[in-house]
């Protein structure tokens, strides 16, 4: 039986951070973090867990992506990330919109591609670490990242052209 307080202290901030970067919405983050730890608790009752950090990272990423796909496009303003203090209101709006569009585009990706992209570009992991976390080969992770980038760049380029 693991010490759950110690596990939450050690890995909780990482789970919150991954959820925050993928979801960007306080209430969704709260739900995802709780779900991750409850699911981890249920899992450790069935099987022995040796690598908690990898497991929680994977569960947080996949859970947040699933929640992002379920989320409606018109997210309420309550709980959205706060604007940067040094940006003009116009810049704040543009950047917020850009982030929202990227999240929508990530949500539209296949699960593996979305997870690899999030862990690589939002969490800063190496492809080796990503492959270990997701239980896939290095080559599969590299392929998924390449596809994800191509799709996301296409979506954002298309969006930029629509705006012009």
């Amino acid at each position, binding site marked *: 039986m693991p010490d*759950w*307080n110690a596990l*939450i202290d050690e890995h*909780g*901030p*990482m789970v*919150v*951070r991954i959820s*925050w*970067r993928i979801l*960007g919405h*306080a209430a969704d*983050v*709260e739900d995802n*973090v*709780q779900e991750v*730890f*409850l699911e*981890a*608790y249920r899992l450790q009752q069935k099987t022995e867990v040796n690598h908690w950090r990898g497991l929680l990272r994977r569960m947080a990423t996949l859970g947040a992506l699933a929640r992002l796909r379920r989320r409606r496009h018109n997210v309420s303003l309550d709980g959205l*990330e*706060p604007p*940067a203090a040094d940006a003009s209101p116009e810049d704040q709006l543009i*950047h*917020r919109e*850009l*982030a929202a*569009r*990227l*999240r929508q585009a990530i949500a539209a990706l296949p699960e593996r591609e979305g997870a690899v992209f999030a862990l*690589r*570009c*939002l*969490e*800063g*992991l*190496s*492809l*080796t*670490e990503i492959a270990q976390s997701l239980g896939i080969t290095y080559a599969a992770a*590299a392929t998924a*990242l390449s596809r994800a*980038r191509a799709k*996301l*760049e296409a979506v*954002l*380029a298309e*969006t*930029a052209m629509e705006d012009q």
Partner: protein
Amino acid sequence: MTEEPKPNEANDPQEPLSPALCDAVAEILARPVPEELSRRVLEAVRQQVPPKTRRPIGRLALVALLATAASIGVALLGWRLLGSRAPGPIPGPSGPPAVAHDPAVPVAPLPTLWAYQQAAKESPEALESLLDRHARQLLPPEPPLRTGFLPSSAGGIL
């Protein structure tokens, strides 16, 4: 709070992101997790994990229900078994005290129903006689009549 990792492209040489994608990623990374949110969320998780062991109220209630049902079943079964036997004497109104018989005197048997039928056929007097005999056997002897129960002082009145 642990240090937030930044994208580390040096780990795996990749082509740089397109400007739009790079800006969007940078925008997301520029917003750190609000401290208050992180603290609140983790505190909520600490309250929920591991889930508090709940008392098995459902099981206890089920056991109590089964025990009650079993008790009622046993009671009903016993009642039915007892009810199938001949009913015992129903206590009636308190009658006259039982007659104490002298063990030396043999007790005459009570008249039978057959005897009553015969007496009724014979004559009303015979039936009356049989009833009297029956009554004498059941009822206590009547106390002797008290003569002169009035106080002597009442003599003047009468």
